[in-house]
């Protein structure tokens, strides 16, 4: 069902996807693609389906270290194999993610339903389709954004750990490997994902409850260390330019935007109060009173603060930090990128046109999910409380699944909070909807787990097959 729904969206004309908001350029040139010359190219207003494949030496270097090129290179390879060596059709990008997505959806459904064989599982399967085949997620496939990589990787990561805990397969190492690879791909996909390594490391560590042999435990610990290392590497390999952009916007569109007295905020941090006049500016303002990259700006402004400076400031000004987090929470469930079009120009739609095809779940969540940060705190406590009770039973009854599930939920909640914090600290209120991508995804996965566990009556106990067999 997912295959049909998503294939219709991505591959059948009019082709849908997301238009370029400027971020594509970071991904296309380093991977040997370019905007076709002699043909109109659109930013925001329309998505562009065809790109050129460089036939000459590519001198572009990556603006940031990322696992995203793995997906793009695969798509280009497939495109060159079956379509053209000179023109790239973005549907091949969509096809790569689509195939991976279908595998992920299968594993997720299997993880949420195994080992029960009840009619209720059809409801769970339908729910999975309704939630995760939502176009707000799948539109990303036909784009050069990094998010679709995160989406499919998260599906695999979440499902594989659950399948391991539920002993779906006799051979456990393929699932461990799948969890490890998908997690590392997810963490290294985007700079903002670096802190998420902590959450995934916790999940990996919980496998100590599943494996009992010394050698297996050693591998689990090694995997945990490697996941943490991938987070550190992602952070450490952020290019200076990329860092400067984010730091600048964290200050101008974060600290200064919400500060009651922006001049005082700067002066307390040892920065000339005149820079309060950068309040609300972005790094990419078309017209600016000063070159953001100038020596003067570096010497007197951007070199005088760091993410730590901003974090310290936010922590010492909880009301302003809270306001920023609430601002972020407003966008917490908005998965569909509203700033860009979902159609090509040839589709005959107006500029910035958005598709409403199969967007029921994201529309409901966007409209009804409470838009305050406090609600996320509340929901986190509720989830952890419910699954902690289950984990207690699990430990008492010797069922490691329950502990792993708790770790998974804790990790999901941690990812939600870290994403919120990393977004407002890392880039202020700029591009919030995109930066918060992991928030709705983790919320949806946690909710799907909760609903499936409720339907199969295994919230606090391991599922029991008729006859009392576990």
């Amino acid at each position, binding site marked *: 069902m997912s295959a049909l729904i998503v294939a219709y969206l991505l591959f059948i004309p009019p082709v849908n996807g997301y238009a370029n908001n400027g971020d594509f350029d970071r991904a296309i040139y380093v991977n040997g693609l370019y905007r076709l010359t002699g043909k109109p190219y659109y930013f925001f207003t329309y998505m562009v389906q065809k790109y050129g494949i460089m036939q000459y030496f590519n001198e572009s270097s990556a603006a940031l270290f990322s696992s995203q090129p793995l997906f793009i290179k695969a798509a280009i390879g497939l495109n060159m194999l079956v379509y053209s060596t000179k023109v790239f059709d973005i549907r091949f990008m969509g096809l790569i993610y689509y195939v991976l997505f279908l595998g992920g959806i299968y594993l997720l459904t299997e993880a949420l339903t195994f080992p029960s064989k009840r009619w209720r599982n059809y409801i769970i399967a339908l729910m999975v389709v309704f939630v995760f085949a939502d176009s707000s997620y799948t539109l990303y496939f036909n784009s050069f954004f990094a998010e679709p990589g995160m989406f499919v990787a998260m599906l695999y990561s979440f499902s594989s750990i659950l399948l391991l805990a539920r002993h779906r397969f006799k051979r456990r190492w393929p699932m461990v490997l799948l969890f490890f690879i998908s997690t590392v791909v997810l963490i290294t996909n985007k700079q903002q994902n670096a802190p998420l390594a902590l959450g995934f490391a*916790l999940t990996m560590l*919980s496998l*100590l409850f599943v494996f009992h042999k010394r050698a297996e435990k050693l591998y689990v610990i090694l995997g945990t260390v490697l996941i943490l290392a991938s987070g550190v590497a992602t952070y450490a390999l952020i290019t200076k330019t990329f860092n400067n952009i984010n730091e600048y916007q964290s200050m101008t569109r974060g600290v200064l935007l919400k500060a009651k007295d922006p001049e005082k905020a700067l002066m307390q941090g040892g920065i000339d109060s*005149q820079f309060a*006049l950068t309040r609300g500016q972005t790094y990419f303002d*078309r017209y600016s*009173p000063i070159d953001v990259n100038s020596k003067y700006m570096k010497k007197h402004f951007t070199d005088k603060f760091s993410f*730590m400076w901003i974090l310290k400031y936010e922590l010492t000004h909880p009301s302003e930090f809270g306001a920023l987090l609430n601002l972020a929470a407003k966008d917490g469930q908005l998965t569909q990128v509203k700033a860009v079009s979902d159609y090509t120009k040839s589709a005959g739609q107006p500029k910035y046109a958005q598709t409403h095809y199969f967007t029921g779940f994201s529309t409901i969540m966007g409209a009804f999910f409470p838009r305050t940060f406090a609600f996320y705190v509340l929901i986190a406590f509720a989830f952890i409380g419910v699954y902690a009770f289950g984990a*207690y039973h699990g430990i008492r009854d010797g069922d490691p699944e329950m502990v792993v599930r708790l770790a998974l939920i*804790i990790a999901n909640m941690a990812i939600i909070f870290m994403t919120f914090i990393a977004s407002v600290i890392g880039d202020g209120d700029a591009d919030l909807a995109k930066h918060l991508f992991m928030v709705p995804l983790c919320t949806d996965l946690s909710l799907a787990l909760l609903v499936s566990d409720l339907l199969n009556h295994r919230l606090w106990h391991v599922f029991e097959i008729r006859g009392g067999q576990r």
Partner: protein
Amino acid sequence: MKKRFGPILLLMLTIFSLLSSVSVTASASQVSRAPRVLLAYDSENRANDDQTKIDAMQRLLTSLNLEVHTIRIDQYHAGDIKRLHFKAVITMVNWSQAKLTTSDFAHDRAAFKGLKLHIGPSMATDERQSLGLTLSPRYHQQYWLSDHTSSARQLLSFSESLAVTTQTPATVKTFGTLVPQSQNAKKVPYGVINGNSAYLPYLTANGLSFIVASRLIARFFGHTATYAPLLTITDVTPFTNMDLLHKLATDLENNGIPFAISTTSISVNTDLPAYKRFTSELQWVENHGGVVFLRTPVVYYPKASTQGQLKQLMQTQIWRLIDRQVFPVGLSAPNYWNQDLVYRPAALSYSNNVILMQNPSETKNADADNTAGVYKQAFYGLQEQSLETVHNGTNLAQTDLSFSSPTAVTMTMPDSQKDLTGLVKRVSAAKVSWLDPSAGKFSGTTTVANQRAHYRNGNYYLNGQLTVVPTYNPPKQTKPAPVTPTGALNTFFSVDGVFLFFFMIVSLIVLLAFYIVGRQVYWRMFKKK
């Protein structure tokens, strides 16, 4: 009654709209019907930085109130010289080896009877005939350029080949003298004008060569006046150290040096005290021998369709400044803004005074049209550093130079007290008679919406009314708190450790507890067996 009032009302509206349009035309900065000059070049030759010569020529010609049309020779359309009624054709050769000429251009130039100036090597036959002088090649020479007017001299860089005029009849006007270092070789004139033709063997965008070349070009177009340079402090922004700006204005006034500042401004955040402080310092400048030029913003990503955005931005900036009783006497911009169909009307059309600065290494045109705007008064922005040629001859900065076109000698806003002291010292030591905006013919008008700020004889007028710039009253500012130096790791553990890992540590403790309990339960199971 209605029938009678209708036509009267219509007539009044017509008169009012006519009057409005008249006032708009009067306040518009661009001078129409200025003589047209075609500047045709063969190549920008960026490897040799020769685009700076084109930039210099464009600005120089604009400062002489000429309408410059710039074109690369291979893009010339046949018949344009005649069709556009050019007063003069300037041929600039920057890359003679490429031989980038077209027969169309050469043919039209040969037929052209107006003023012809050739700059650089490879003078064509028709130009030689017009000039009527013999050019002799000189190989492997290094010259001193000597200028009798200013008694200055400058050592030029080594030249492999230079075509010079060895015989100059009395009717030929010469400018500067090239003195060869080898004693056997003969002194020759640098630039020559012979009737309707002129020749410069080379051009540089700075130093004594430029001063002499600009004199030749000014005379060639009939300008005989000399101009005192306007000292202009550039790179002032709303983020500049306001204490330094305050002190700079004070020190310059104390040394009797009139000056101008070229500053960018902002259209948002004008409610913040920092903006009030910025404008208070600009008022201080206005009250202490200085005038303010509003600098156009820095362009990050040019786009033709954003003309409206730029227009709105500029108008708001000017309006806000006037509201704070800061009256810009003109505008300043890099030269490429004046060669752009988008920028010119949206940003440079509010004043009759413009300072054209040297282009940055990367220009960001929105829609380059290469037809320069003309203004009542356009200053050629000349970096003061480019006059510092003490190692190669006379220190021009300490020479009583007179300029042949309105010139703004620019100095960058100092960034420290040490820089400020150095700047004031250098300016005070200069033998230049600086242009005093508060005296003489200098005037400036900036108009936006219904606000018209005018400056003349040291007085500011707002919509015709004499206005007194308020005395200095900035908002209170405390100094930035000194930052105690701490190690990066200290900060990391004190801040990040507390918050970012808090959640995870608690979770780990919970998991550990479960693990311990779990193991106990597990062992208990064995014990039972």
